């Protein structure tokens, strides 16, 4: 022990403190300013504040709260009508809260914060009896709102969050490599990557609400996370009989509202679905798909479905699980509709469609291929022979801009060209191509043409132009990005005026004018064009990809009118039934081209048909 001697007098040196300033403060009169501000530090974890406009009601705060102090309460708004949010907000029970701020660190929208307020008083009668005080403990439960938000403390923005903001890495082919072939270029998740991606999901369920088919997305992601792929696929088949297809080409509205997308990249819901289906293998998937049928006994009713696209297949699957006999009429040689004959193989290889269709065929769905309703079999006879008819013909035809020289032999309609490519037919490919259109079909044809060009000429020279300005293009962002990666030049915001010909009568290029706006105040299609601002895109081939149309020649005028036909589409009730008895409509011809909507429609139609049968 090296400390000094004992001495009676040394301790008295402390008495000098009498003449020093005290280090404590008289609290209510003055406050600490050790942190550069009066009061607690700027990171203080005090009471909560919540920005209700930013909050999406995902409930993750409640999930991570270690003391179960946070409960979600309903805001009384109709939940289903909200987009990208749940109609619930957190309440904090300050009798339980331990002020750990995990809720703040785990908040995906960043709306929940903590403040520098730490004193909570409540009004109460002075002489309230003890029992009353005990039962008043729920007064400590507060709904954090704008209260105290002017005194911010612990916040969480960016990388400090508990959430995993970046998508798990997934192998893609490089643009150089993939543009040379029609092989699927997204390679899918490995198991580790999928587990990591599945762990990013916070299971808020906003995606389920947004999905047209209301798929149980958190549940099947949970299945993947728990490494229980069978459960995962079973959940998928409850609402979507085409998971293998949707896992590749779904328009994933779910991902655009994903809670994680507020701060980072949304969970790759589509790729996770694809992973689950691919990892489990087609045999197992078909087994799970057909297992649903065992719950129902055959009803003896028969349904005819016109068109083997997503809506038709979806309806066929669910009708078949409900025990009804199903016959599908398809004019093409194989089932799949636009998915098979419109979408290029690099996005959706044939095996995926075959696997999903195979599950249905095994359940006893009768597929009549190369049978065109109207020519091979009449619509009236279907109505007569079957208990119900579902029209799900989709949009197999293209639409033209009808500008000058649109009928030149070197022009083409995207959907028909894609169709031909898929059928393996040779199509003309020029060295310089101009494409009109900004949707996913335009991207598909641009990228398909790019691949053909690459094979034929060794380089890509495609200009894509559309009415919509940058950021308004209807195509998926990733499609646009990948197209640019593959060498396609995209010039949005231009309205095509005319296809100009050179002296030989060959196409010289496309003349365009600046498009100022596409929709008017009423959200109607009403482009406004600045005729003075012109540009010219050179090219010897022009492809139009501005929309699709259907072929209703098998229906009589009376039928069309009765079924609510209007400008190429049908207006139907919630049950998908048309004006004609026993005739139902589903798919693109109701909601426009969208695979997941079509699947949802098919399911709805199946349920209405089942209800119809049960009624009588």
């Amino acid at each position, binding site marked *: 022990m090296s400390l000094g001697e004992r001495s009676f007098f040394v301790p008295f040196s*402390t008495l000098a*403190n009498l003449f020093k300033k005290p280090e404590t403060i008289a609290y209510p009169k003055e406050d600490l300013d050790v942190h550069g501000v009066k009061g607690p530090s700027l990171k203080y974890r005090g009471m909560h504040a919540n920005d209700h406009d930013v909050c999406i009601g995902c409930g993750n705060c409640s999930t991570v709260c270690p003391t179960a102090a946070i409960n979600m309460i309903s805001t009384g708004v109709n939940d289903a009508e909200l987009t990208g949010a749940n109609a619930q907000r957190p309440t904090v029970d300050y009798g339980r809260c331990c002020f750990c701020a995990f809720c703040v660190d785990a908040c995906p929208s960043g709306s929940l914060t903590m403040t520098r307020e730490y004193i909570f008083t409540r009004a109460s009668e002075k002489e309230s009896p003890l029992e009353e005080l005990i039962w008043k403990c729920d007064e400590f439960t507060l709904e954090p709102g704008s209260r105290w938000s002017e005194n911010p403390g612990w916040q969480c923005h960016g990388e400090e969050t508990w959430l995993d903001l970046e998508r798990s890495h997934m192998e893609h082919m490089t643009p150089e490599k993939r543009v040379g072939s029609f092989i699927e270029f997204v390679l899918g998740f490995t198991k580790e990557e999928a587990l990591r991606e599945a762990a990013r999901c916070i299971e808020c369920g906003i995606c389920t609400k947004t999905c047209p088919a209301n798929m149980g997305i958190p549940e099947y992601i949970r299945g993947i996370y728990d490494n229980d792929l069978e459960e995962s696929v079973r959940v998928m088949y409850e609402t979507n009989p085409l998971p293998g297809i949707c896992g590749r080409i779904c328009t994933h509205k779910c991902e655009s509202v994903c809670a994680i997308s507020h701060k980072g990249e949304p969970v790759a819901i589509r790729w996770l679905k694809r992973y689950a289906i691919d990892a489990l293998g087609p045999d197992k998937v078909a087994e799970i798909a057909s297992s649903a049928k065992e719950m129902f006994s055959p009803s003896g009713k028969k349904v005819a479905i016109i068109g083997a696209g997503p809506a038709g297949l979806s309806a066929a699957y669910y009708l078949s699980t409900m025990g009804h006999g199903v016959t599908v009429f398809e004019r093409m040689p194989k089932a799949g509709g636009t998915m098979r004959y419109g979408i290029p193989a690099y996005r959706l290889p044939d095996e995926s469609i075959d696997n999903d269709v195979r599950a249905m065929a095994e359940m006893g769905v009768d597929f009549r291929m190369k049978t065109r309703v109207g020519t091979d079999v009449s619509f009236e006879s279907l109505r007569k022979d079957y208990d119900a008819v579902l029209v799900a013909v989709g949009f197999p035809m293209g639409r033209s801009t009808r500008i000058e020289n649109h009928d030149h032999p070197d022009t083409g309609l995207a959907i028909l060209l894609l169709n031909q490519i898929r059928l393996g037919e040779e199509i003309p490919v020029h060295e310089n191509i101009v494409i009109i259109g900004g949707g996913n079909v335009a991207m598909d044809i641009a990228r398909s043409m790019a691949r053909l060009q690459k094979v034929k000429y060794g380089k890509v020279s495609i200009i894509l132009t559309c009415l919509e300005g940058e950021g308004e293009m209807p195509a998926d962002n990733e499609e646009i990005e990948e197209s640019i990666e593959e060498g396609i030049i995209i010039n949005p915001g231009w309205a095509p005026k005319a296809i100009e010909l050179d002296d030989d009568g060959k196409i010289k290029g496309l003349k365009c004018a600046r498009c100022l706006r596409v929709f008017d105040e009423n959200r109607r299609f009403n482009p406004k064009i600045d005729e003075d601002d012109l540009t010219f895109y050179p090219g010897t081939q022009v492809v139009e990809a501005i929309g699709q149309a259907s072929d209703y020649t098998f229906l009589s005028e009376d039928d069309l009118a009765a079924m609510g036909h209007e400008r190429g589409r049908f207006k139907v009730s919630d049950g998908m039934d048309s004006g004609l008895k026993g005739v139902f409509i589903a798919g693109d011809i109701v909601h426009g081209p969208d695979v997941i909507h079509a699947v949802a429609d098919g399911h709805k139609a199946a349920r209405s048909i089942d209800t119809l049968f049960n009624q009588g």
Partner: protein
Amino acid sequence: MNAYALLGIKLIGVSFGSMAVGLLFMGLGRKVTARIQRRMGPPFYQSFIDVIKCFTKTSITHNFVMDLGIIMALGGLIATAFFIPFANFSILGSSSVVIVLYLMSIGYLGMAMGVSASGNPNATIGISRALALMMGYEIPFVMVIMAMLITYNSSDLLTYAVAQSNGIGSWHIWKYPLGFIAVEIAFQAMVGEAPYDHMIAPAEIASGPMVELSGKYLGIGFLLHAVQLYVETGLIVNLFLGGASSWYVMLVKMFAVYFTTLSINAVMARYRIEQGIRHLWIWAGSFGLLQLIYTRIWG
């Protein structure tokens, strides 16, 4: 107004006056201790607030003996206060220091009776420590008093005051320096400040006698301490510091004595009880004895 009424008024005045002075000292003492510990400390009138608050609370009594003991302690100490000349004011005209010493112990005995009746072992240990410690400090104290008795052949505090009235030079502190040191050490134990705060000793016996005192009893406990401070500081001022000619000088001197005590209290830890008594006997006792021998032989 007859003489009895006047005496009654005086007695009541001294009772409340001594409490007020004691409480004021306690408040100032808390402020001083706080400053030594570099704290703001409570306001100087905090002790008054504490006592008033205590008297508004409901209190728990264990039995009649407890009530009686506590009242007896307060009564004994207030009776002592009557004998302490405050400046040149004295109720009884003469006040023997022997009576003061005798009455002072009634305070502790009453306390002992009261809190022992509560049956809490902590309180019992505390009060038994206080009584044990009394043996430690009374003996040196009495030795010094004996020295004074030898010199003046009188036990009257007023006699001592008259003898010290010729300026600072005539104070007993110079005449009985060893005795003063002995009494200072004993005084530290008398008021129960460190290193002799065995009676309270929170970390050891949970505040000892105070542990069973609630509400009004705790208020009386505060008052006991206040009167005790008044009596003991007043006694030392009268014995050694020349008494006083005016009330404010008296107050200042009394507080100076208390301040010294507080300073030691603030920087010292607490002895074990046997260490404490030994220490008192060895140091205070030997100084007192030396003073007694010196006075007897050369004084």
